[in-house]
């Protein structure tokens, strides 16, 4: 059976053709069948999920349906705290750590009736340099489209779980690409909303000033549904209930949409198939009646990378100072290297980088103010072969993701087709702060006009 999407599973629960118990059992069967090959999970809580499924079924049968996530299995990156479950962040330094409380997003999802299946693979502490050094406690997740390939990091298990159907939806976290890269590599939908939209409480930090959690789903409507359920409604621009889901399917004619095809100085050209899919996608949007305006990124990606290469390591070194001081041998190479680098950053340079961030943010905000949405590349390459350098680090570094992390704009990755070898292609859609609805409106129309959601990995 094809894995069900959030929307399909929710509809089937409501019409009585499936129960939360069926859904949990289906995910557990899928995990048993394929997870030895793809390693999407670090920890599976089968008993807890079955218990929660029984409770959800009883509630729904009694007429107490909580909403579209009620009874749906999900999983979270292992930097999220979940009460009673190991929280290792794939680090030897955190083996045996079992938090007593749920992080805020897990609490919100459980309140919406969703069922937590377990914890998903991640780079150590949600950080890495793109390389795979085989020195972490749990195995590296593998791309279900080709298990010899990398599924993107640092939310390595989240995209894999959704693409392979070991969870109906998943949660990850992004600092400069850790939701968007795995979504790109696995053909899933990954969004980082406007920072502040989703709570970071109870998620192990990687970089306080840039961290941003986000959901992974198979479809655009699914993504909007999950974001609707967990968005912080105490925020200054709190969306109306179901505002994001309602945006999917709305008329897109008349939207002001910018495109950036020139990746800027110092960047390699996108893979030929990525570029061809991008152009074909633009033709789809034109066919839907949108006038696209070619523009340029107002800041060089290299400037953005320089800023994040100071900010990221410095903040990580502050967050994990104790581990570097006391247990440096227990850290994996990628994390230790970052913490060593961060320990060398001068405060003056860190502040210069944060000043630069503000200028980047102002420039991109000025650009975005003229448009409803912007379409550009995400990663410039397709999923790389595991363990093959420099293919691995090029996938992680050659991207247009960082500028929008610095500028604090919401950004979504969407599949735009497949290579001849069957690997997912993608683009990135960005909107103004607080306007995720425009992303969902545009991406939903593109998805409805294309066949890319009909195909799943053949494991």
């Amino acid at each position: 059976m094809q894995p069900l999407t959030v929307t399909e599973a929710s509809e089937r629960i409501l019409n009585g053709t499936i129960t939360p118990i069926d859904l949990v059992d289906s995910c557990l069967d899928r995990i048993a069948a394929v997870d030895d090959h793809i390693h999407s999970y670090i920890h599976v809580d089968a008993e807890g999920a079955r218990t929660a499924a029984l409770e959800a079924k009883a509630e729904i049968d009694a007429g107490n349906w909580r909403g579209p996530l009620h009874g749906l299995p999900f999983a979270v990156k292992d930097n999220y705290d979940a009460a009673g479950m190991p929280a290792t962040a794939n680090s030897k330094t955190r083996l045996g750590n079992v938090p007593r409380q749920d992080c805020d997003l897990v609490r919100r999802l459980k309140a919406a009736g969703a069922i937590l299946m377990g914890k998903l693979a991640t780079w150590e502490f949600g950080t890495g340099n793109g390389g795979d050094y085989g020195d972490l406690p749990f195995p590296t997740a593998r791309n279900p489209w080709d298990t010899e390939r990398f599924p993107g990091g640092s939310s390595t298990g989240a995209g894999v779980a959704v693409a392979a159907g070991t969870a109906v939806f998943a949660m990850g976290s992004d600092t400069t690409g850790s939701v968007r890269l795995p979504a790109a590599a696995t053909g899933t939908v990954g969004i980082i909303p406007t920072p502040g939209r989703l709570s970071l409480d109870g998620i192990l930090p990687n970089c306080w000033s840039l961290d941003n959690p986000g959901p992974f789903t198979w479809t655009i409507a699914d993504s909007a549904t999950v974001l609707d359920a967990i968005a912080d409604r105490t925020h200054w621009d709190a969306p109306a209930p179901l505002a994001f889901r309602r945006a999917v399917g709305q008329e897109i004619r008349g939207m002001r949409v910018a495109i950036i095809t020139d990746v800027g100085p110092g960047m390699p050209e996108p893979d030929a198939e990525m570029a061809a899919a991008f152009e074909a996608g633009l033709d789809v949007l034109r066919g839907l009646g949108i006038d696209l305006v070619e523009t340029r990124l107002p800041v060089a990606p290299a400037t953005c990378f320089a800023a994040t290469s100071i900010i990221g390591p410095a903040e990580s070194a502050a967050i994990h100072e104790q581990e570097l001081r006391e247990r440096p041998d227990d850290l994996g190479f990628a994390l230790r290297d970052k913490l060593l680098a961060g320990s060398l950053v001068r405060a003056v340079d860190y502040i210069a980088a944060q000043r630069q961030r503000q200028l980047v943010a102002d420039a991109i905000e000025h650009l975005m103010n003229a448009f409803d949405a912007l379409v550009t590349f995400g990663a410039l390459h397709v999923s790389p072969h595991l363990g093959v350098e420099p293919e691995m680090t090029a996938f992680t570094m050659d991207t247009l993701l960082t500028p929008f992390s610095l500028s604090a704009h919401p950004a979504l990755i969407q599949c735009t087709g497949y290579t001849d070898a069957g690997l997912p292609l993608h683009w990135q859609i960005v909107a103004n702060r607080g306007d995720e609805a425009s992303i969902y409106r545009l991406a939903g129309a593109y998805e409805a006009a294309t066949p890319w959601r009909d195909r799943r990995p053949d494991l």
Partner: protein
Amino acid sequence: MTDSKKTEPFDIKPFARIHGLERLSPQHLARMAELAPRIAQLGRTIPRPPDKLDAPAQRCKLLKSTS
């Protein structure tokens, strides 16, 4: 001709010691010494805004929070 930009070998041991990193192995210290000039160079490449009123990014300012 002398390259004025060439960095001298950096003795990382005292730096690590005064910053509480005594448990780093010789290999870690060697790697840190290798990274030091790169990080310094990277820091120098960050453009400095000419106006002293250009303050660092603040999460609340980026989000225009009213709270």
